[in-house]
């Protein structure tokens, strides 16, 4: 999990330039230059990783996810050819030179699969991260603050929840034609934040009635501080869970949109590979591997993140976190 968060923060930079990605800095919490705090954060992350690792299912998920991350990071070293190099023979079956054969346009399939991991992981983590940020910001303030704004947010969230996700995605994607990856990320964020917001809101509501929250108000804390320093840290597991859930659906949504031809067809992603394979009727020519290889990768990546979520569930058990308290 340590790799993935690092990955998320590094890849988040191009996406924040995107006007549609409302990324409030509040969720990061106030950063203080205290050394001990940094050390403690490291310790907390380490402990979180250990907790997730201790769950056998999550361990399998972490290993698979780690392999995909390595594959994406070291793609130029691992891939035998450039994914755009179409100088090879067309529709070649697997051979020593091209392990998985070549596409109808004469590109190396293995290289495309390896490079495709970059797009999927990037979209998964950036879109998942952004929609989690939106969910956290809206869910927490919605659950904590009271007043007329509450009803407005309630209406909005319900609106996004009742609208079927895929058709909405297709419509937005069709309007923002040729927007490339940022467009896909934006679409996924718009359609993906509402569920997380609702879950986090109910948890916030149950935490806000706890004595330590009232006590923080008596200590003169501002609402923002109560929300982000008292309530938020008590929901880390839930937020991590909603991040992996959102990332999984973002990976699937990206593949789905690309497969439907709504993404940027020039970029090599697993979804667009299946799109082109479908277009060249790869199944009829006996090149099932063209569909199978990217399909399996999508399924494996989604599965790995779902498996990691099992371990995150363990994190959310207060007794595990409280240790021997009480």
């Amino acid at each position, binding site marked *: 999990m340590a790799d993935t968060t690092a990955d998320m923060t590094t890849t988040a930079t191009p996406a924040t330039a995107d006007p549609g990605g409302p990324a409030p800095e509040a969720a990061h919490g106030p950063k203080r230059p205290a050394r001990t705090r940094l050390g403690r954060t490291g310790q907390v992350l380490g402990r979180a990783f250990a907790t997730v690792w*201790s769950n056998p299912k999550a361990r399998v998920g972490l290993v698979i996810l780690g392999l995909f991350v390595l594959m994406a990071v070291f793609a130029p070293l691992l891939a035998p050819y450039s994914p755009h190099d179409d100088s090879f023979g067309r529709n070649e079956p697997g051979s020593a030179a091209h392990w998985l054969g070549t596409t109808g346009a004469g590109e190396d399939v293995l290289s495309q699969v390896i490079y495709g991991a970059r797009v999927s992981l990037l979209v998964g983590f950036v879109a998942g991260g952004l929609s989690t940020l939106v969910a956290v910001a809206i869910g927490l303030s919605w659950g904590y603050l009271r007043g007329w704004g509450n009803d407005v947010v309630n209406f909005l969230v319900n609106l996004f929840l009742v609208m079927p996700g895929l058709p909405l995605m297709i419509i937005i994607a069709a309007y923002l034609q040729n927007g490339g990856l940022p467009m896909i990320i934006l679409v996924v964020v718009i359609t993906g934040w509402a569920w997380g917001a609702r879950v986090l809101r109910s948890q916030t509501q149950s935490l806000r009635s706890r004595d*330590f929250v009232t*006590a923080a108000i*008596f200590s*003169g804390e501002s609402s923002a501080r109560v929300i982000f320093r008292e309530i938020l840290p008590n929901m880390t597991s839930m937020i991590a869970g909603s991040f992996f859930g959102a990332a999984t659906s973002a990976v699937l949504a990206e593949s789905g949109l690309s497969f439907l031809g709504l993404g940027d067809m020039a970029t090599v992603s697993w979804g667009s590979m299946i799109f082109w394979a479908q277009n060249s009727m790869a199944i009829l020519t006996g090149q099932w591997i063209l569909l199978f290889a990217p399909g399996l990768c999508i399924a494996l990546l989604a599965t790995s993140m779902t498996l990691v979520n099992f371990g995150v569930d363990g994190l959310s058990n207060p007794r595990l*976190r409280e*240790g*021997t*308290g*009480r």
Partner: protein
Amino acid sequence: MSLLEIQDLSVVYEPRGAVPTHAVKNASLSLEQGEFVGLVGESGSGKSTLGFAVTRLAKAPARISGGRIVFDGTDIAHLDAEELRTQRRGGFAMVLQSGMNALNPVRTIAHHFGDIFAAHGHVPKARRRQRATELLDKVQLPSTVLDRYPGELSGGMRQRVSIALALSLEPRLMVFDEPTTALDVLVQHAVMDTIRELQAAEGFTAVLISHDLGVVLESAERVVVMHDGEIVEDGASRQIFSAPAHPYTQMLLSHYADPRAEVVELPGFERKAPQDGAARPERAAAHDAIVVDHVSKVYPPPRRGEQAVTAVDDVSFRLEPGAAMALVGQSGSGKSTIAKMITGVERPTSGTVTFGDLRVDRLRRRQLKTLHADVQMVFQDPYSALNPLHTVEYTLTRPVENFAGLKGEAARERVLELLETVGLTPVEQYAAKLPHQLSGGQRQRVVIARALASNPQVLIADEPVSMLDVSLRAGVLGLLEDLRAGLGVSLLYITHDLLSARVVTDQIMVLHHGRVVESGGTTQVLRFPEDAYTTQLLDAIPQPARRFADGQAS
């Protein structure tokens, strides 16, 4: 032969990834048919673990690591689930502390009885309703309860239903695990009476597990005292009361006193504040009075068509600077609502609350900080009043920064000073701890330290010791007393526990259904109560002394 024979029983908790805890160590105990035995100990003494092990309800990570439990000639320590299930009838039953929450909210009470009768098949279908009525009658509930849902019954009624359910299998051994702890004071008393009468009439063997030696001494014939997983004393109630042998029992017993007595003393507690208020302490933090004038609070009806709830009804009082006043009453009497209105958390429906020049009932959200600089609160449950993820230092630094405006090293110094004030030394060590590394009493001291961080004039303590073990109570009460004497803060002490009210306060107000039924000097009111309700509250306190003095002990 005795009904239950526990030999050398040990129970160990083995949570994943943590050090195993030996909750019960080599306990041996034998119970005769028809005995009423009390099992007493403070939290962590292993009394509940022992009770659960005896009825074989202990679940992982708890494990019976050694010894035998012989019930009526068979060793039940290692029976499997199905053998156990058949044993439950005519065998042993248990009533839990949260028994009133053990009922399924979507099924009627009749269904609950039906399930048990069907599972064991010992009551023919035609007689089931009649049998259920009989059982309810034994716990003094009318048969109309059968068609009600659990949500429609009060806590005391639900606990009675769960006792009746436990009775339905005609057990020979009943284990009551803190059966009244979660109930209101007055209800507690009534439910204990029922249990006592029931035991006498049915003749089953009863084990009453409780942290409250007073309750146990009042009911049980024999008392078993546990401490740190070991049975330290086992004897007849009268003997335990008059001549406790073990120092731990002596210590427990010393914390009981009659609030009606002329002089009330608790070990480790010393009265320091001037009683009459004439002599002022050297430092007088408080200089403003809280004035509550004809305050009422009406909550809108919970459901359409129901009556509005009047939580507080025309209450007026004045908390003088430096004074200590107790607000007493059972749950629902409106005492906590008054605290909320004084601290600005709730607004009164009518009437005014003023603190100095501040109209508390008209404060806006942002102005609350001004009020909280002077009026601070000590919470009831020290386990939920501290954020489990923050260190003691962080928790205390926040109010110091917010109210005193201190930063960095100065703030840290002030935090350490606060820890010193509440007696958590060595301060450096405590500052770095997380709440779960502290005991309940230590947590409550941190909560008090946080309340003191703003140098408040008034402390409002909402049942500050009710969640603590008796041996820790005196310490926390003593701390409150020290603060009043040393710093001169005013104290509004909210409680249902008249004994602690007697020792820390000068004035008292007794609340009933939101109205003040009696008020005056604490000693005067408690010694010579005028209102019937005050007398009722006083009578609800377990009085082993009276039981043994009257000679009605069995």
